[in-house]
């Protein structure tokens, strides 16, 4: 429970943080809320030589809406997202997801950016950002770029970020008319992480058919993923109970499903299907204003 020694850096600006990242390369590691990295360091599963704490960079903590898009700074805590009035009305999926993370203490310290950059296979925010088809902003030596979330999660604890890049913000669409969000999660009783977590955004057309479906799933495979088969089955169709169930039965298609002490791969596959259907039902209920 005692980490190896490391040097601790506290940049005051993003530019300074970027310089440090460029300087230390693979020896450097970004510290945000510390709720994934610090436990790994205490177990000596991670032993960075330089820790670059973003905690004093005020410009990274914000939630704002511009032109129908919500943008959130990477250092925004889960608690800020959970309790934001703007998000509760304009992007409730993020508030609902935040409220399902850890406990109060974790939510007070853990950050959106940290959760995404860590690409924990059971992290909650990856599922939500996938369902919202969001974009992720990265700042590095070559400047700033926006990465589509679809290509962001590469593998277990691996993202599309370059070694010198810092995740600085995310951007998602505000809740359109006739749409509904939902995040449902089965908490592993020891860790509180997702045995399965399913995030859904459903957008209906004027006739009540499904115009667009976004389904992000976490806890099930080596990384969070979009349930493309489910999305495809639903797009353009009327949302009958039977159709939701049929679509949900494809939730884990093509995924090598995790097995652990809590759930075998067969059981987790079943849970993924059930929880996907429940998330779809909940999102539909909200989209239809019921």
């Amino acid at each position, binding site marked *: *429970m*005692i980490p*190896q020694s490391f040097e601790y850096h506290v940049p005051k600006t993003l530019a300074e943080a970027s310089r440090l990242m460029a300087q230390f390369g693979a020896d450097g590691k970004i510290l945000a809320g510390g709720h994934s990295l610090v436990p790994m360091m205490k177990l000596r599963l991670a032993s960075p030589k330089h820790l670059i704490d973003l905690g004093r960079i005020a410009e990274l903590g914000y939630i704002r809406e511009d032109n129908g898009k919500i943008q959130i700074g990477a250092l925004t805590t889960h608690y800020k997202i959970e309790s934001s009035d703007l998000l509760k009305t304009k992007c409730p999926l993020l508030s609902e997801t935040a409220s399902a993370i850890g406990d109060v203490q974790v939510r007070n310290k853990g950050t959106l950016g940290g959760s995404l950059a860590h690409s924990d296979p059971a992290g909650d925010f990856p599922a939500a950002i996938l369902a919202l088809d969001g974009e992720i902003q990265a700042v590095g030596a070559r400047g700033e770029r926006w990465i589509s979330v679809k290509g962001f999660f590469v593998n277990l604890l691996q993202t599309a970020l370059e070694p010198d890049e810092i995740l600085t913000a995310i951007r998602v669409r505000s809740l359109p008319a006739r749409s509904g969000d939902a995040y449902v999660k089965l908490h592993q*009783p020891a*860790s509180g992480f997702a045995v399965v977590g399913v995030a859904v955004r459903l957008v209906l057309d004027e006739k009540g058919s499904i115009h667009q479906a976004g389904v992000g799933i976490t806890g099930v495979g080596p990384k969070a993923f979009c349930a493309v088969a489910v999305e495809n089955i639903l797009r353009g169709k009327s949302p009958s109970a039977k159709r939701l169930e049929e679509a949900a039965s494809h939730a884990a298609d093509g995924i090598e499903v995790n097995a652990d*002490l*809590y759930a075998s791969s067969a*059981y987790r596959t079943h849970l993924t299907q*059930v929880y996907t259907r429940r998330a779809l039902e909940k999102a539909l209920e909200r989209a239809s204003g019921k």
Partner: protein
Amino acid sequence: MSTKLLGERIKRKEDPRLIQGRAHYVDDIKLDGMLYMAFVRSVHAHACIRKVDTAAAKVLPGVIAVYTGHDIKGKLGLVPCAAGMEGLKIPDHPCMAMDKVCYIGEPIAAVVARDRYVARDAVDLIEVDYDPLPAVTDPMKALEKGSKLVHENFGDNIAFVAKLDAGDWKAVEADKTIKVIKQRFINQRLAPISMETRGVIASYSPGEDSLTVWSSTQIPHILKTQLAIMSGVDEARCRVITPEVGGAFGSKLNVYGEEGMACFASKHLGKPVKWIEGRRENIQATIHGRDQVNDLEIYFQPDGKVVGVKCLIVADLGAYHQLLTPAIPTLTAMMILGCYNIKNVFVETKGVFTNKMATDAYRGAGRPEATYIIERAMDLVAHELNMDAAEIREKNFPSPKDFPLTLPTGVTYDTANYQKTLKNVLKAAGYSKLRKEQVRLRKKGKYIGVGLSTYVEICAMGPSSRMPAGGWESGTVRVEVTGKVTVLSGTSPHGQGEETTFAQIVAEELGIPFDDVTVYHGDTFQIPMGIGTFGSRTTAVGGTAIYNAAQRIKEKMARIAAHKLGIKPGELVFVDGKIQTEDGQKSIGFGEVVAEAIFAKQLPPGVEPGLTEHCVFEPPNYTFPFGAHIAVTELDSETGEVRLRNYFAVDDCGRILNPMLVEGQVHGGLAQGIGQALWEEVVYDENGQLISGSLMDYVVPKAHQFPWFETSNTETKTPVNPLGVKGVGEAGTIGSTPAVVNSVMDALRPFGVRHLDMPLKPEKIWNVMKAGVKA
């Protein structure tokens, strides 16, 4: 009359400092020149050690010393086992392994360094060359001929076999109307997981040749004796201090190798040495609890009268004996008949060595296992006969008039009214309504379960004749010159709240304010003798010693007061800070008598100066608290998830001195008992690797997983001690596990499954439910 204190919800004296973070645990203590210790632990469950290379660690700047098992050989005594049953095999248990390791986490080398970071870095620099051996992990397979052996020198893996055989089994077998149900139950291995892990500081003074040890323990006096023997320091120059202890649940009712190593290193280096256990070490190398395979046969008449219980208990003891390892399963045999008047019993208990951490006392220690076995069995009989779970229990209860009741297991239950607790819990839960709701919901494809458990347990441990090293307890009451009162107890409470309870007893007896009494425990220099806190004994045994000491103080003060007032001592009572006649006509201040006693100007002839009384209470018997619990569970028929919807507990722990503390004990106990039923399990794989090695995997129950507990009490006093108290520390844990499992099995009844083993993880239930309802 003075303020009534006993039976009142008095707030805990210890809470302000604990809540405000101002209390001192072992890790808060810092001594001049203190060094820090860390351990290299085995990564194999079973292996020979070829070589331990410490060269690189020794030269790391800041490292003061590195020790291996061979460095302590002949210089530091073995880890002690106090259990002494006939024919018990006791393997040598050095504080660190020498040539062979027998479980994951066994200490192999110790580093002492100037700070804990250097110590930890040095651990990574020590290379151990292992020659792995096949691991013995399944206790049933360990019993087979030709099994690999944990300890080669013993020839088999059986540590002991104990038999209990009473009644007339020939008559049972001859009666053809008697039916039998056979069932295997698994009481799975659990980890106690106290919030504060273990920790110790040893400080040896070479000039005085004396040793002071601060340890997070439940048994400071026993620890002092054992560390003196192990380290070779004269016991009269050894002192153990127990600062605040952040939970223990039986896991610190022990003497550990790490405590021995801290003493050894401090003596060797002449400096204080601190060791604080990490959480992973805590799950690996602090004792585990339970871990029994129970093959049960229950014999009953067609009318539901149970006539006999047979059980083969295979107890997985792990690799070595800790302090009470082999004794724990014998408590299971002792309590296997539960609260039923059953005339015939046969129990064979086999203690088995495996390549795992030792099991030992964990909250309930042997009794939760017994209660689980008999309470599950009563439900199986009820189902077989199509009787109601409450009805079958009532049918087999002894009458309140039958007490004291000696059972064929050899124990004598003091007092009880099982009918009353059962009646109260049925009423509290709305039992018949619940049954109707259950039928209604089943028709809709929804499944709720109603589970009952009526338990009795054994507390107030115990008569010295039946304990390994004394079962008495000491208490001292000392009235200071200013009239303030100091109470010393040989017990060692670690969260239970006896600083409050003991002060209530003394303040009420002496007729003085509650705030004038201060209770001390956990320092062997201050407290002349003691056994400790475990087995729900602290108030019943330790509180009685204090009560008796207070009586002696009163007798002496009454003599002095009577002398001053010119009356007989027997006419005086202690109220409102005064010592007075019943009618209040003649009176003298408490402080005035104290001054007289200590300044000794005009003492009655033959009365010694001073007001200090020390008593040792030897309990004539155990006490037997009991209760009735109901758990209501709801199953998710799609996923098998269990939701505990309601929980009702009616407990009888004898006379209640502080209802708030009783509730606290029951709530905590319920959480841990329910934890065993639904979530908790220490899992080793077939190679003896610990799979549930962190709190990411091992489920410690959390408040949000529980409904509000509906608790209440009945009060059936015990004649075993003058306070009439029985004990409540473990009751919740003992009563709740079978209530929850019975509830889930009751919910699953339409699916035609008789039994599932704990923990009742959703996947097991889903596997049953997906097969569909049986006709």
